[in-house]
């Protein structure tokens, strides 16, 4: 048994625990004169955290908002794929959801700069008489990019939970006189909760570290904590402060995720069938 567990333990140790320890050690150090890590023991980096308050606030606003919007867009799609589409087309449509992932997110997000830019959607809106719409480099643009980029991560878990749904339950509800809205609310939605929980978790966790979409579609003006970290490591080369920000983010994530898990687990079905 111990021998079987060894690879897993080693993997966790090398890939997770050790990097986290390094981050913690760095976060109590000082920036070397030319950048990087300069040793030492100080709480200065943590004391300096308020300088990135806006970035934390932005992340904690846009990550839940982006997750919610992704869910609102993904659910009807997953529902349609799982329950309404003819079996013959199902696989093709599922593959079509993944196809965009064959291209780098960087390139797809870059394309949105042009779609949302002055010569893109705003020009089309002008043709139909709506003038002065500005999309690119606004929070709206960032949210559009998030929904676009994270959609499959939300669609698949929800799809799986809907696909597993026992169709006879829908018929039973129908037989007992429930209309389709009531059936959805009392049968379909509760039974798809595990998928919703998984999808939201996947999207939310990744969004907390997102930096590419706000950098490209927010024009550097909608600034996430991920952008702050990229800056600290790749521009200012302030590894200790960057590590302090990273460690703080991990703590914030642990807190929010465990609150979320507790809420999700309260739902009994969620506890039984959660995919997590």
């Amino acid at each position, binding site marked *: 048994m111990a021998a079987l567990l060894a690879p897993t333990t080693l993997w966790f140790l090398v890939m997770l625990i050790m990097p986290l320890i390094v981050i913690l050690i760095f976060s109590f150090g000082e920036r070397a*004169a030319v*950048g990087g890590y300069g040793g030492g023991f100080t709480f200065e980096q943590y004391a300096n955290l308020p300088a990135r308050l806006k970035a934390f606030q932005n992340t904690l606003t846009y990550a839940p908002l982006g997750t919610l919007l992704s869910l609102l867009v993904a659910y009807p799609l997953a529902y349609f794929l799982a329950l309404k589409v003819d079996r013959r087309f199902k696989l093709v449509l599922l593959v079509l959801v993944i196809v965009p*992932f064959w291209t780098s*997110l960087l390139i797809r997000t870059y394309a949105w700069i042009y779609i949302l*830019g002055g010569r893109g959607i705003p020009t089309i809106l002008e043709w139909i008489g709506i003038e002065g719409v500005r999309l690119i480099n606004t929070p709206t643009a960032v949210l559009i990019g998030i929904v676009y980029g994270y959609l499959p991560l939300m669609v698949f878990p929800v799809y799986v939970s809907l696909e597993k749904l026992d169709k006879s339950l829908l018929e039973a509800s129908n037989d007992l006189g429930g209309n389709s809205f009531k059936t959805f609310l009392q049968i379909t939605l509760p039974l798809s909760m595990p998928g919703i929980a998984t999808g939201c978790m996947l999207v939310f966790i990744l969004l907390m570290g997102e930096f590419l979409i706000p950098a490209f579609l927010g024009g550097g003006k909608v600034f996430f904590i991920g952008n702050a970290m990229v800056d600290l490591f790749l521009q200012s080369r302030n590894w200790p402060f960057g590590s302090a920000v990273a460690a703080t983010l991990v703590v914030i994530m642990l807190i929010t995720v465990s609150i979320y898990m507790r809420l999700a687990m309260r739902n009994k079905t969620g506890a039984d069938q959660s995919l997590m």
Partner: protein
Amino acid sequence: MSKNSDKQITSKQFMRQLWRYKRGSISRREFLGVTGLGMATAVMGAAIPSLLPQKSWASTDLGDRLVFSTWPNYWNQANLDEFTANTGVNIQVNAFGSNEEMLAKLQAGGTGWDVFVPTNYTISNYVELGLIQELDLSRIPNYDASANNPKFAGPATVNGKVYCVPKNWGTTGFIINSNKITSGPKSWKDFFEVTKGEGSGHTIVHDYQLTTIGAALCALGYSFNSIDPNELAEAEAVLIESKPHLFAITSDYQPGMRSGDAWMSICWNGDATQLHNDLPEMQYVIASDGGEIWTDFYAIPAEAPHLDAAYAFLNYMQDPAVQARDAEAHGYAPTDARAIALQPASLATDPILHPAEELMNGLEFGAAQTLTDPNRAELIARFKSA
């Protein structure tokens, strides 16, 4: 009741249901659960590597490869293809947005870069940190020191040793869309006034400490290179005040200028040439209150894995005809007089590429200390996250 009878199971649906049960719903569900999660995992796996900015490490152990790190829109693909055709060395190009980013990569180590393009003010830092190697000029016979103006080539020599060969030189000013900005800003002071006035919502500053902080410093009448904490604090106030009026903070300003979303941007003169050639209303301004003059160089990192290929590439890129072709693609002026002589005469007298000497009097070369000054680094980061 009619509603329910509508939903009665048809014979076709019944058969489908039966068929489904025959296949065994449990194994099917498990299968779907596994494949569904498998899909989600595959999807994440595909997404995460693409989020990493660079993958240059992947090629370190390939002998037929050269990893070349440079700036966006700063090379002629025809040259690289010709080099590959002649030598069999495939070139992997990485484009970077700032010298700081290049330094960060080199400091972290294991870049796998063979040749990269640092700007004048970074070289002494690289030498001090032991990140670049002294060049054996006998392996670069195409390089002719006497054809290069010492004003531009000078920073390549540190403590009497040559570490780089020059590539191009240029200036950092700003570009305006003269159809939209009609007040004719001439200085960085005007630039920030216009940002808050007729250009509000349509101005871009670089995501780059040197030029963006430098512009704010010049607007206040200070040196482009100042690291004085009080002067930097004033510059920060100028930037923070203008932030709500900015269209973007990005060094990739051509898309915004071209789409008409942005009307004014801090700009390097080669980009200005590219924009002006396509859109004549794009006007380049060398600010009267200062700014930057710079030279970019080719250098070889200390840990370059393909040293022979790197020297071959440097020598090839120093060929005057190759330099002229390179400049044709990106619009920046070569430092090498032999290459300028090969260019069309109109370029040699182009006011954007070769401005009158008196216009350049106020310009400064970036200073080494700006690269490593922690206050400047933190200032730009604070400005962005404000």
